[in-house]
């Protein structure tokens, strides 16, 4: 309670302190935080949603989880693992782990949960790709059998959380709930895991209240002093900012850009900026023989690498960084952020901004007067997405390329680009596995089955790229694999498959007395969270 003096200013805070002290009698800390939307469900295998996954991680544990600073997978429920063969990995479970109802964690729970994530109704199959089966060896040992060598197994396991088999069976929640289920299941509104916190109350869109799990195995070593967490979604960004300024919440995950200067200047608040593991880029149609809405008939200028490079070099990213993003972005020439395996300084380097080069390239390609092209952007998905696209449109106009910009809300934008209806479109790609394969497979692999090229919105296709991606999927020699990832990223740059723009910088706003570690996946680390 060191900060009582600052808190005393408001009667509300005073009352809150009174309540807290009365309730616990010890120095307990409550952490109240907010962001724009609520989690879709508490069912850990139902919807693969970034915010939801982050909150689930406070209630449920996974076998391994990313270290908040290094982003290497480190032991959680698994205390160790060993590769028995390229297709069989054996996990030893941590001893003495209890669920919050006091029951002990066993291999049955792990087998059950991983199978649940592999179920047909699960939305987490992307993280169980390459799993053949999960087998119990003994009460504390589990084998994961793979269809082939899988170098990203540990990364996948960070998002596969473990629930109690007995609890799920008792509450008829054996299958994850999905859009087809006729009504909500017990596990949708209730939760019971082995994580640092347990669910006290969830009123969707109103509040989610968590209290410390008395049986948490990690309590001894964790610096956190937080005993209660109250999460309130506040949709309106002005109200969210007001709630922080008035002291009703301690932390805002997504403050709006225009409120940041005021928050930075406020003596009671601080803003922490961190580079998010999400790269924003432009995709270009390299498939059609003629672009709809373009004045060039009979051919597609975007198929010419010189044209794509001209568009790239005509964009002044420094200006966008300075003016549009107000310094809150990290320009990049790579398709992935620096935390991602495969990234190097080399692939990060951008082609220089030069209107002259751009004009020269356009002339060489046979478009000295430029051309007209369709350009689509979301207007509520990425930070300043619409403004960035407007700036780019103006920059292209200077070299003669007349982009006809359309901006759409994300609900209509995403289906539209998935139907390949944008000649040039914007996309931002986060990498939950922290491995470049995730991006390369979705964005640069020729469109195919099983997630290959599923967001390759320009239908870029390059045999060398396909070869590299397919090799990387099963290559277990880390050195060879990393080299191929970097080669693929470099190939994307050389062929200008996409125009990378920047990595988003995510500011978190909070009271001065809050101690957090800014994670690149935009999540809070519950074990490191402190309220002073």
């Amino acid at each position, binding site marked *: 309670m060191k900060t009582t003096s600052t808190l005393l200013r408001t009667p509300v805070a005073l009352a809150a302190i009174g309540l807290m002290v009365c309730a616990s009698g010890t120095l307990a800390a409550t952490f109240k935080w907010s962001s724009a939307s609520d989690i879709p469900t508490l069912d850990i295998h139902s919807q693969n949603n970034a915010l939801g996954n982050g909150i689930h991680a406070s209630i449920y544990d996974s076998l391994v989880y990313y270290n908040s600073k290094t982003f290497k997978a480190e032991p959680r429920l698994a205390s160790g693992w060993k590769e028995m063969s390229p297709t069989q990995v054996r996990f030893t479970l941590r001893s003495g782990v209890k669920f919050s109802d006091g029951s002990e964690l066993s291999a049955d729970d792990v087998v059950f949960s991983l199978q649940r994530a592999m179920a047909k109704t699960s*939305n987490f199959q992307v993280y169980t790709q390459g799993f053949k089966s999960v087998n119990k060896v003994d009460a504390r040992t589990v084998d994961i059998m793979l269809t082939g060598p899988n170098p990203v197994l540990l990364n996948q396991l960070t998002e596969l959380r473990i629930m109690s088999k007995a609890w799920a069976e008792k509450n008829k929640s054996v299958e994850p709930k999905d859009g087809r289920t006729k009504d909500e299941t017990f596990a949708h509104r209730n939760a019971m895991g082995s994580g640092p916190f347990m669910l006290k109350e969830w009123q969707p869109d109103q509040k989610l209240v968590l209290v410390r799990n008395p049986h948490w195995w990690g309590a001894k070593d964790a610096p956190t002093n937080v005993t209660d967490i109250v999460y309130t979604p506040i949709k309106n960004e002005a109200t969210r900012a007001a709630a922080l300024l008035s002291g009703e919440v301690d932390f805002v995950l997504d403050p709006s850009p225009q409120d940041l200067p005021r928050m930075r200047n406020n003596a009671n608040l601080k803003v922490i900026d961190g580079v998010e593991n999400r790269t924003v880029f432009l995709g270009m149609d390299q498939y059609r023989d003629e672009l709809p809405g373009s004045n060039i008939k009979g051919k597609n200028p975007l198929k010419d690498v010189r044209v794509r490079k001209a568009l790239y070099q005509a964009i002044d990213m420094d200006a966008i960084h300075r003016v549009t993003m107000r310094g809150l972005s990290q320009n990049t020439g790579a398709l992935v952020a620096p935390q991602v395996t495969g990234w190097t300084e080399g692939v990060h380097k951008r082609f220089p901004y030069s209107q002259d080069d751009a004009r020269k390239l356009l002339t060489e390609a046979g478009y000295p007067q430029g051309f007209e092209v369709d350009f689509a952007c979301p207007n509520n998905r990425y930070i300043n997405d619409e403004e960035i696209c407007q700036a780019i449109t103006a920059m292209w106009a200077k070299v003669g390329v007349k982009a006809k910009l359309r901006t759409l809300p994300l609900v209509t934008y995403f289906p539209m680009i998935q139907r390949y209806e944008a000649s040039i479109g914007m996309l931002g790609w986060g990498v939950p596995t922290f491995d470049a394969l995730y991006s390369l497979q979705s964005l640069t692999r020729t469109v195919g089955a099983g997630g290959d090229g599923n967001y390759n919105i320009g239908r870029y296709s390059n045999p060398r790229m396909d070869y590299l991606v397919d090799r990387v999927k099963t290559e277990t020699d880390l050195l060879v694999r990393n080299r191929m990832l970097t080669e693929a990223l470099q190939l994307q740059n050389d062929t200008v498959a996409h125009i990378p723009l920047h990595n988003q910088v995510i500011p978190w706003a909070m009271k001065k007395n809050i101690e957090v570690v800014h994670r690149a996946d935009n999540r809070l680390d519950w074990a490191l969270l402190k309220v002073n």
Partner: protein
Amino acid sequence: MLAFVLQRLIQALVVMVTVAFIAFLLFQYVGDPVVFLLGQDATQEQIDQLRADLGLNQPFFVQFWHFLVNAAQGEFGLSLRQGAKVSRLIAERFPATLELALVAAGLALLIGIPMGVYAALRRGSFMSQLFMTLSLLGVSLPTFLIGILLILVFAVGLGWFPSFGRGNVVQIGWWTSSLLTLKGWHHIVLPAITLAIFQLTLIMRLVRAEMLEVLRTDYIKFARARGLSNRAIHFGHALKNTLVPVMTITGLQLGGLIAFAIITETVFQWPGMGLLFIQAVTFADIPVMAAYLCLIALIFVVINLVVDLLYFAVDPRLRMGKAGGH
């Protein structure tokens, strides 16, 4: 009588079906919820499968027919965003909206009527002019701005009231009320004022105009001639007669308050139906949007029906049957 009621009911039904149809037509353009349900990693097969399972690949009229049949049974399907029954979601949110609307209506009446009376009786005085000027502001300032200003002054600046949420709620059966706790009242003050301001100024101006009208009538002059006290004339005779149109307007506006609470609820994160609707829009959660629009239409239709029936009871010309349309 029966014929009149039946006729009104049939009209109401036509209105409802029309609203449902227009709403459904619009939803063809709000976007595709499937992408959100499955996340960015979904394969095309998964998307097609889910679309088929949800019936989204059926022709428009087939989808609409299913919707009508289910809606007639009070069943609006499952929210795509929250995976819960829409009927239950709406039932959970309805109390918050209704309480907010009622408190706002109460505020508007309690403050608007006295202000209107004062402005009529002390015409031209400084206070009356002030009220009239303020009422102009109240009519012309957008709700959104009023809400944000109130938050800025009373929540951030002075710290008197909370800036969001409903506070503590008490569960009574399926109804949740925030009006039974002090904290709940504490939370409702700012949103209720925000929502009430437009109605308040409307009522004030209406009362003033009606009051001025009534004060000119013969029976008021006669009452003065009888030597009745000002107090008895103003409040016993004039005000009473003023209130008939005020009551009608207030009743009709209650539907408006419920429907237009959307903005107030968004600003104050008030967990009512309006907020549910706005969140459904950003997610293209079609079942929730459809149910909300139908419910709002139903509220308007019911209120209008009740008003019509009250007129029927009050106005003898309607009871004669052949008085022509009105």
